[in-house]
């Protein structure tokens, strides 16, 4: 029955052997076994929702970076590298590293010392229920939709790559994720993310190694790309950005620096609870500060297994890939480049490892969303608004039920997306609506004690409205693209950067204006929450090798060197 369901789709991109199937089966057995093993440790709320706050900096750091290393990202960014070239690496470097260092050095002490369990939880302490409820409701809604999108994307990839039916992939993945997250909570999610990290690296690293051998190294690859795509600049990051007309993304360097580097990435890496929750599980403040910085070094290396395979695809694939909405029968789309490169270099065994890495990435994406949803629903919506003084065990039970219900809703979302494909774009756009203004609200609240309760809420609301307005106008009337993005050539990725910038600026302006006419909160309510009233533990007794700031500076120096090398 299962075999029939799995193999009901007609054509496949790769064919798996017995050893490949064994590798995939072993992964499923291991994660289920780990889930059952960890169940006995997830008894209290702190255990279930924050993994007992006892993770080392390394475990929290790898889980932090892994939560963003899902298969949707891997396939999508390898496809973007094929489409836009080396410029796609901006999302891994300037679009991640400064934000991760900023989270570790500046923001993490406040999140950690306030003992909050979530980002909406911090907003409640800092501003009150209005900003917190807005953030919690939107976050819960978005995570559950994103989990469904991950589920559908995995099922689709498995159908195209392996010929597995959609129903089979959805049932197996949701059952597995449901069992191990409901059993072990964040413990299970983090353990699985660390496993996924190693699987993705060992599953994908052979592609650039063998690809560079085939092309004769970096210079050989560049020569082949120039030969096959004359006149196009696929191998530089900043050079083509002096004008939107000089690059296929239609983006100016100002949008990359301020839209992506200063707003979009800061918003994602410092306020998206899905990633911040991993760092909150750290065992002490120093580990919490160090975790994102450890993650930043690995994040800097990810282009090796994502961007480089996309570039190698340009150099060696005997056919040209096309945009997803233009792919006809027998044609491959940009997002297929990673599986195509995997099939090009990997035979039995290695192919199974690569496919397992993709499956693990999708399931970790679902598990991350569902575990973050369970926490925000239980602590930021159910406890404050429905049942205030229940025993701890009741909230743990609620978290387990939330996981199951969240997955059922995700399955419904996955099938909805199947029948309405454009919904996938809208769900992914939803995150952009809230993340950029949320960064303005959180960072102003941390650094400026004068910001009032209503200023935080109204600033956040205004930023969200601005973001939605800009998105809808640019989506349905292209003449607005020139207004918001300063160039009619701006592609969706560039539009999203400008949209984030406008949303954050609106949020900051409204917050500042309302603060100036409103009454601030008393100092005693802000202790441990804002810069001026928080005693952050000093590190005088710590050797310089163990200081987060030292490693943060090292990460930024390496980032600068990479920019110069690939200018």
């Amino acid at each position: 029955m299962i075999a029939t369901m799995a193999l009901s789709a007609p054509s496949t991109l790769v064919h798996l052997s017995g050893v490949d199937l064994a590798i995939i089966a072993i992964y499923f057995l291991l994660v289920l076994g780990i889930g059952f093993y960890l169940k006995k440790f997830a008894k209290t709320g702190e255990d279930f929702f924050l993994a007992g706050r006892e993770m080392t900096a390394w475990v929290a750091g790898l889980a932090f970076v892994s939560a963003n290393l899902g298969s949707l990202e891997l396939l999508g960014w390898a496809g973007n590298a094929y489409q836009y070239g080396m410029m796609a690496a901006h999302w891994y470097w300037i679009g991640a590293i400064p934000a991760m260092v900023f989270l570790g050095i500046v923001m993490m002490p406040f999140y950690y010392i306030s003992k909050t369990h979530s980002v909406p939880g911090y907003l409640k302490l800092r501003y009150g229920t209005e900003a917190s409820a807005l953030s919690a409701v939107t976050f819960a809604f978005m995570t559950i939709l994103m989990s469904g999108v991950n589920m559908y994307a995995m099922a689709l990839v498995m159908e195209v790559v392996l010929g597995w039916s959609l129903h089979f992939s959805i049932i197996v993945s949701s059952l597995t994720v449901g069992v191990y997250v409901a059993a072990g909570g964040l413990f299970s999610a983090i353990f699985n993310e660390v496993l996924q990290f190693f699987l993705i690296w060992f599953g994908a690293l052979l592609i650039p190694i063998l690809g560079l051998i085939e092309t004769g190294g970096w210079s050989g690859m560049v020569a082949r790309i120039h030969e096959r795509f004359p006149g196009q600049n696929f191998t530089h990051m900043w050079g083509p950005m002096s004008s939107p007309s000089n690059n296929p993304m239609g983006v100016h360097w100002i949008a990359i620096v301020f839209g992506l580097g200063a707003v979009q990435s800061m918003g994602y890496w410092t306020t998206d609870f899905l990633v911040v929750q991993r760092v909150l599980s750290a065992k002490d403040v120093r580990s919490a500060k160090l975790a994102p910085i450890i993650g930043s070094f690995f994040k800097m290396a990810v282009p090796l297994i994502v961007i480089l395979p996309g570039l190698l695809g340009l150099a060696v694939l005997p056919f040209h890939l096309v945009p997803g909405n233009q792919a006809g029968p027998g044609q491959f789309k940009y997002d297929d480049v990673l599986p195509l490169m995997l099939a090009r270099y990997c035979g039995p065994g290695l192919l199974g490892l690569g496919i397992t890495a993709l499956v693990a990435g999708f399931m970790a994406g679902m598990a991350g969303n569902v575990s973050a949803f369970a926490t925000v629903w239980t602590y930021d919506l159910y406890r404050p608004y429905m049942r205030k003084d229940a025993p701890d065990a009741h909230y743990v039970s609620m978290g387990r039920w939330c996981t199951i219900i969240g997955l059922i809703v995700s399955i419904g979302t996955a099938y909805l997306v199947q029948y309405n494909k454009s919904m996938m774009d809208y769900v992914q756009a939803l995150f952009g609506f809230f993340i950029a203004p949320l960064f303005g609200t959180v960072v102003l609240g941390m650094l400026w004690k004068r910001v009032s309760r209503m200023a935080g809420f109204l600033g956040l609301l205004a930023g969200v409205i601005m973001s939605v307005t800009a998105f809808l106008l640019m989506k349905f009337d292209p003449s607005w693209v020139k207004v918001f993005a300063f160039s009619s050539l701006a592609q969706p990725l560039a539009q999203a950067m400008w949209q984030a910038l406008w949303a954050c600026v609106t949020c900051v302006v409204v917050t500042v204006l309302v603060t100036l006419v409103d009454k601030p909160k008393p100092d005693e309510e802000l202790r441990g929450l804002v810069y001026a009233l928080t005693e952050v533990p000093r590190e005088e007794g710590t050797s310089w090798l163990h200081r987060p700031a030292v490693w943060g500076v090292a990460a930024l120096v390496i980032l600068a060197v990479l920019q110069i090398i690939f200018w």
Partner: protein
Amino acid sequence: MSEKHQIIPVWFFVGSLLLIYGVLILGSGLMEWSHPPEGVQLSNLHAPVWWGGLLVVLGTIYCAKYYPRSEA
């Protein structure tokens, strides 16, 4: 990894997975040594053999270092 809970370190699970996968991939690579799979580029380099071997070595190191021992 844990002071409150005596949980088996995640690194042990990582090591176990790498070791099992390494053995399977190495074995598969050795079996196809004289009959490389068709359609796979650079199969003459026998990537499964050295990649599988690397996984076996790393997996063994992790398993040995983080093997859960009961504390006296």
